[in-house]
């Protein structure tokens, strides 16, 4: 999982972490187990993403891959991107 800058504080500053999950929903459940409170930064409630966050699997928009049910295999790269507004 590759993490956008606004998220890195909760994962001890890392830009990439390794997690297990057969699909995106399971992956983020793993994330929450490892980093308590991380879900609250990414999700509004349940599996609904916050409106300033988006997910990509191997560079593809997660919505076209099945949303949170998008299947994952070993080696896949999930990117969590946040809107950023500096200029």
């Amino acid at each position: 999982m590759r993490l956008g800058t606004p998220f890195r504080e909760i994962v001890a500053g890392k830009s990439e972490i390794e997690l297990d999950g057969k699909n995106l929903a399971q992956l983020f459940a793993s994330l929450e187990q490892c980093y308590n409170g991380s879900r609250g930064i990414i999700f509004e409630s349940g599996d609904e993403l916050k409106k300033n966050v988006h997910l990509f699997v191997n560079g593809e928009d997660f919505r076209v891959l099945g949303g949170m049910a998008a299947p994952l295999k070993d080696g896949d790269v999930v990117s969590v991107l946040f809107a950023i507004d500096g200029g």
Partner: protein
Amino acid sequence: MLTDEQRKRYARQWPLPGWSEEAHLKLARSRILVVGAGGLGSAAAYYLAAAGAGTIILADPDSVELSNLNRQILHCTKDIDRPKVESAKEKLEALNPECSVIIYREQLDSKNAHKFFEKADVVLDCTDGFPSKYLLNDVAVATGKPLVHAGVLAWSGQVFFVWPGKGPCLRCVFPEPPKEGTAPSSLTMGILGAVAGVMGAIEATEAIKYITGTGSLLVGRMLTYDAMSMQWQQVRIARDASCSVCGGSKKRR
């Protein structure tokens, strides 16, 4: 017909693959709106002027502050307290006197943004702040005007090309900005000037490519830059049919 001086000034552009006198003339006749004369805008405007953009329309309401100078390279120490657009105009015209720089010491808002967009062939989002970024996106879709969106934070940057009707807009990927006060900013996380410079230069590049019809634009693709690990990533953004701004044939006015 190009002058000898023009041939010399742009001598390093003539050999570019995909370039031609016709491409140069398109750029020389172009009108490019750069919204924001800060970190992104400094680099973007500078490279547009250097390449031979005909007219740069520059809008920014602010004056230069000392804390701007780690990244806003169009401004110098002597420009502190001076309107940014005046400082910028001076430097851009010194670089390329052929570039017409029209300045507005104004904040774009929902009342005046359409007027600015009408003046330009393409718009560069070099603003600082979610309200401005989302406003520019929404007006781009409403007017059908292409927009290069970019944002920077700390060691990171993101950029893509909003071409209304042909690809996704900002709200297709980030439907709404974060609640005020909940997102980190350059005040809390900082911004490295060189990162803003890189992203501003990419904005200028996309504008030049659009104007001249050269290369492939970042339509439906977002380029992300992590300078800390020096990694680039390209992600494909799907257009959202239910987007509140560009979904279907919807236009917001």
